């Protein structure tokens, strides 16, 4: 995932293997991981000639923002999903975060 985030353009499996060469990963391992990430919706892929090119669906910051939104929201299922150290009735931060996340897709279209 780090490699995908560091590359502005979509990458092929071989690029990831090369970027991680210090850990000497197997080609098939990387392919399996990328496939799994694709299935979970974290990575999208497109066919380029004969190879799949992979790109992250969202930036690292957006994922962190999603986690924080889960952590700060005290409504509905999010309330029951996590137990907090300190609970508060309303959190303005959560509103700001959800607005920021809602705005994001529009920015992408521009």
């Amino acid at each position, binding site marked *: *995932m780090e490699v995908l985030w560091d590359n502005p353009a979509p990458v092929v499996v071989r690029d990831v293997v090369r970027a991680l060469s210090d850990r000497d990963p197997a080609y098939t391992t990387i392919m399996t991981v990328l496939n799994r990430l694709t299935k*979970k919706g*974290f990575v999208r892929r497109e066919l380029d000639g004969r190879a799949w090119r992979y790109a992250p669906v969202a930036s*690292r910051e957006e*994922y*962190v923002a*999603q*986690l*924080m939104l*889960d*952590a*700060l929201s005290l409504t*509905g*299922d*999010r*309330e*029951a*999903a*996590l*137990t*907090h*150290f*300190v*609970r*508060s*009735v*309303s*959190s*303005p*931060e*959560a509103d700001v975060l959800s607005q920021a996340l809602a705005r994001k897709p529009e920015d992408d279209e521009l």
Partner: protein
Amino acid sequence: MIAAVHLLATLLICSWAVRPLATARWVWRAPSTGIILWQLVGLAWVSSAVGLLLAIGLAPYDAPIPVALVRWCRDLPAGVSPLWRSVLVVVGLLVAAGVAVALVVSWFSVLRVRRRHRDVLALVAREDRALPGALIIEHPLAVAYCLPGGRGAVVLSSGALRALSRDEALAVLAHEQSHARERHDLVLLPFAALRRALPRLRLVTIAADAIALLVEMRADDGACRQQNASSLAAALRRFSTSSARPPAGALGVADTAVAARLSRIGDGAPIRPALRWFALLSGLVVASTPLSFLVF
């Protein structure tokens, strides 16, 4: 008719008991007893409401509720019982089904939120050598929470790490780990489901908030057994001033809840066992009344 009177009495007792139990101070000294008591009251409340509807609807049969229910089903095509009584029976059955469905739906959507959360955590969280056992996410806001489940995870934001000293962070970690270990999410789930099913009912909100506070107190106790009580109190104070704050003018439950938790940390005098057993026994009696009518 006797069943209906008993069930009505139980329903009234449970509804009446919610406010005193929510404001009682003695449960703070025995949070686990309080948590069990709330579960019993919740169970008794729902089952006596369902039972009351069934008992009035099935009164002409003059038989125990399960037997009468079978006869009512048999007589339904013939249209023997008056319409309003049948409507009561149907409403009672719908309420019972609704509560069961709300529980199941809540459970599965909670599982979905958690699975997604766990996947995202695996992508962006890191471990910190200074705080083994916790996952850290990079964000300036201070949050600390527990992701319950088979493999429970404790998550702190880097903002929380910066705001806390090492001892305080360890105390927060111990607090969250006792949430994860004792599966407090399962205790809270029925009340979250009830709140979802009856969002406008004050009694449900009061009960849900009270049990959430007791669960926090129980976790505080767990943290105090492992870590320094004064570190936990300091961490609580820091969180209530540095993180999510309710808007000015509206004194949030968070403030009163934190004040309540602070007031009892380090003052761990448990209540007398006799009082604890008396409370549990009363809860059992209240809960068994409607259940006995529904089962026998």
